[in-house]
């Protein structure tokens, strides 16, 4: 009986498994076509899904028959693909992989914001495009469409695999990925192949959006976050194998479905009466980590013509003097501004701290970590639970929270010793999702759905929480006392991060960022420097989490969601990921911050308009001002902020290789000494 039930649930998981697999195919297509690790594939599927829903349900006043709606939706996805290619992939062709990945994060953010603005964030039911019968298999009755979905995606997978192996297009794509320069010399146009692959990716995502109609209602989140299991599947396929990706996606879907069944069993761990939440996200994380460790090493890298790197991290000239100018202004503003603006300023201060943590880990150390917000959440939840469970308040709870975040950050740093920048981004994205669902949403050690209370901070009986009685000139809550508290903390953190850049530890981080082999040869212990950097960055993130929990007075899982983590990275890339001003100004323009409140108050623009704009802005700034606006303002006097590609006529070894993994990277070139012409 049990085996039969497990089997039934596994088959029921075919549907979502097919969607994971389909989204994974999109990731593979993007990577093969242009070397982009495309985190926006799920978002593109979501856009197509909304298109189908709108056409099929008459959202725009005209209701189309299902077949026509399907055709129109696929056309729409082709248009999306062309736009994605021309607007994102092509302008960023010469950018480092990390910049490409951040650009796709921007697209994800824009797509999501656009949908929320247009249709709101509630889910809508939609007609299925598949027949709705049932079939009995080994005595188990299951709906048809799960099997249909798996079969359709399988057909697509096989077509793609065959096409890449045997057609000229597939051959050309492989050639262009292998060595762009040679492919061009042979008369192939890498641009055309890139376009072809991107359109194929968009078509596949259109199909995923359509198929999803059978098992999901359309909403702006579900399909977007399918990217996480899809990435796990694609990693198993080394970002290039269609069939492996398909199988892995299907297996993940089936395993999640079986977990739902197991969740109903009496022995399954429970939390507040329900089965333990987040186990499936944890499963995806484990799959992804396994895939990254055992498969990703063999992901073929691309033979792009130029590899550009992260923008330069300028050395701060006089951080104290800069602070002496800006801090008093902010302090007076805290006191004088009306409460709405004051709240915006406080939020800006708090998120600036989390962005400074990204400045350390990405700007200085060169590792893109999307788990910083999750680490902030760890600290925040500890502050809440230390109080409710043990009665520990400020400052001890805050200190424990920050230290715990730092320790966990070092823990997350260990995988980063093995995986490179872009893959780390993928793993940490999954970690953020898993932290949110498994820890923060958990009723016992997280916040459940209601939120966990956080006491106002006070020292020696003097409270300086948001509800302190001092209200300043602007009046209302949050109290300027809390604002000043946040401002002081931000100032201290910012000065530390600036000093870090000037210290020898910071120089070692940048040396590691630039070239791990040469750093090791210069006596830098690459492993320790990385772990220290992760620890420092995580501690800073923890500070942000503590302040966030104090500012809300209670803490919920949704404050630390993966989508917010993604948005933070996009914002700080616009202002500058490599400098302290970049981090701080990123906080100023961040959603919910000072600038966003001004937009709302003066123009009635919701935060989602800002998110929508940021997606576009991040692509634009990556192309035109990669060091970021604020970094440019503060340090832009020098003529070249971006390290130019080496002019070494003999070509350059790939910089930043991991120590000890490639043996002799290059054979000696010219045999210079004796080219003897025999005198006659």
């Amino acid at each position: 009986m049990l085996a039969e039930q497990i089997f039934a649930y596994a088959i029921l998981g075919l549907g979502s498994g097919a969607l994971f697999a389909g989204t994974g195919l999109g990731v593979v297509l993007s990577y093969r076509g242009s070397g982009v690790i495309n985190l926006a594939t799920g978002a593109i599927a979501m856009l197509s899904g909304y298109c189908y829903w709108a056409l099929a349900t008459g959202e725009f006043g005209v209701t189309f028959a299902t077949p026509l709606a399907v055709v129109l939706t696929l056309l729409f996805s082709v248009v999306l693909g062309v736009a994605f290619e021309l607007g994102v992939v092509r302008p960023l062709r010469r950018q480092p992989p990390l910049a490409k990945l951040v650009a796709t994060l921007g697209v994800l953010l824009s797509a999501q914001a656009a949908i929320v603005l247009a249709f709101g964030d509630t889910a809508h039911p939609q007609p299925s495009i598949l027949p709705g019968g049932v079939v009995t298999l080994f005595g188990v009755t299951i709906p048809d469409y799960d099997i249909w979905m798996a079969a359709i995606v399988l057909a697509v997978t096989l077509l793609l695999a065959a096409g890449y192996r045997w057609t000229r297009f597939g051959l050309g794509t492989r050639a262009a990925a292998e060595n762009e320069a040679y492919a061009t010399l042979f008369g192939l146009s890498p641009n055309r192949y890139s376009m072809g692959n991107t359109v194929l990716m968009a078509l596949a995502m259109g199909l995923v959006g359509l198929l999803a109609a059978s098992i999901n209602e359309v909403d702006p989140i579900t399909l977007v976050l399918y990217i996480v299991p899809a990435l796990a599947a694609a990693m198993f396929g080394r970002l290039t194998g269609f069939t492996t990706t398909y199988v892995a996606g299907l297996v993940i879907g089936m395993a999640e479905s079986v977990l739902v069944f197991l969740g109903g069993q009496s022995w399954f761990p429970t939390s507040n009466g329900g089965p333990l939440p987040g186990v499936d996200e944890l499963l995806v994380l484990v799959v992804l980590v396994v895939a990254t460790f055992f498969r990703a090493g063999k992901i073929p890298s691309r033979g792009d013509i130029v590899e550009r790197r992260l923008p330069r991290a300028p050395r701060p000239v006089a951080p104290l003097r800069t602070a002496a100018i800006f801090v008093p202004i902010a302090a007076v503003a805290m006191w004088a501004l009306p409460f709405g603006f004051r709240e915006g300023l406080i939020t800006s201060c708090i998120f600036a701290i989390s962005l400074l943590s990204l400045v350390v880990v990405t700007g200085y150390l060169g590792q893109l970590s999307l788990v910083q917000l999750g680490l902030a959440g760890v600290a925040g939840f500890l502050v809440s639970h230390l109080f409710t469970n043990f009665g520990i308040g400020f400052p001890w709870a805050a200190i424990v929270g920050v230290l715990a975040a730092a320790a966990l950050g070092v823990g997350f740093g260990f995988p980063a010793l093995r995986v490179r920048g872009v893959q780390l981004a993928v793993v940490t994205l999954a970690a953020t999702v898993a932290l949110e669902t498994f820890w923060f949403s958990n009723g016992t050690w997280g916040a459940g759905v209601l939120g966990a209370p956080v006491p106002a901070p006070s020292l020696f009986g003097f409270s300086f929480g948001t509800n302190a009685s001092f209200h300043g000139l602007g009046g209302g809550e949050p109290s300027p006392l809390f604002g000043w508290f946040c401002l002081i903390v931000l100032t201290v953190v910012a000065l530390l991060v600036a000093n870090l850049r000037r210290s020898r530890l910071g120089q070692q981080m940048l040396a590691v960022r630039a070239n791990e082999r040469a750093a090791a040869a210069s006596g830098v212990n690459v492993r320790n420097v990385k772990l220290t950097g992760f620890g420092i960055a995580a501690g800073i993130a923890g500070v942000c989490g503590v302040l966030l929990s104090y500012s809300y007075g209670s803490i919920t899982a949704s404050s630390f969601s993966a989508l917010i983590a993604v948005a933070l990275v996009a914002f700080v890339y616009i202002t500058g990921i490599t400098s302290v001003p970049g981090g701080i100004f990123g906080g100023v323009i961040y959603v919910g911050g000072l600038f966003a409140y001004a937009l709302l108050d003066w123009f009635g623009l919701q935060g989602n308009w800002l998110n929508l704009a940021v997606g576009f802005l991040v692509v634009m700034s990556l192309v035109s001002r990669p060091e970021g606006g604020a970094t440019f303002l503060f340090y832009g006097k020098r003529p070249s902020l971006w390290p130019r590609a080496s002019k070494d006529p003999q070509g350059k070894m790939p910089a930043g290789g991991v120590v000890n993994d490639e043996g002799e990277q290059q054979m000696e070139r010219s045999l210079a000494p004796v080219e003897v012409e025999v005198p006659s």
Partner: protein
Amino acid sequence: MTAALEAVGISVSFGAVRALQDVDLAVDQGKLVGLIGPNGAGKTTFVDAITGFVQASGSVRLEGREISSLPPHRRSHLGLARTWQTIELFDDLTVRENLAVAGGRPSLPSSFAEIVFGRQPRAERLAEEVLGLLDLEGIAEEMPSDLSQGRRKLVGIARALAGKPSLLLLDEPAAGLDTNESRDLGRRLRRIVDGGLPTLLIDHDMGLVLGICDEIYVLDFGKLIARGTPEEVRRHPDVLAAYLGKSAAEVEPGASKVGAAWAAVAEGAAEQ
């Protein structure tokens, strides 16, 4: 006196390819030793093996201390410094900072002081000194990418010197330099070695190597085929064969036209 570097039986394999077989090499105190060989002979692999960047068997002793089981950064701490054929500067740091990274390990308290109190790192004066040694004053605040190829090469050497090493390994420092630059480099290297730093020099510029080295080793297909003074190496039949692609029997040292031409090249270099 213990040798600055004593490598015994160094072998490296990449899969089925044996890149180095049983190579013995020693660098005595105060000596400038050359390592030459045709393309693919394994010279860079040898440097990688000594510095710990490839898996190698054999024994490596630095001033008598066995270091073959240590990771690269530990070898560096013990006084082993190298440059790279492809330069490999830290492109995100200024020249001064490049040197500062190599100039010493920050201790925990000093890191703390630098980050919390904003104290400036102390490696700066040392950097100035080393730059002076290579006539590189005035570029301390430049970014490596703004420098010419020749300058970048020199900065690479300066960075290796900044760690106050006890042995210097130079991998093709003259590649890409013109004749004048190469001659300048030779003079500077001699000055550095005479100042007491034993050095192993790998280069394709025969003029440079034959002109300034005290002793020369010759590698071919991963095996040591000759060792001796520049004069001895220049006349060694196996060396001529390796470079000119003829078997030893065909080449009569000093007699054949080819040999004469080769000797002329070497002679010209020696006059520098």
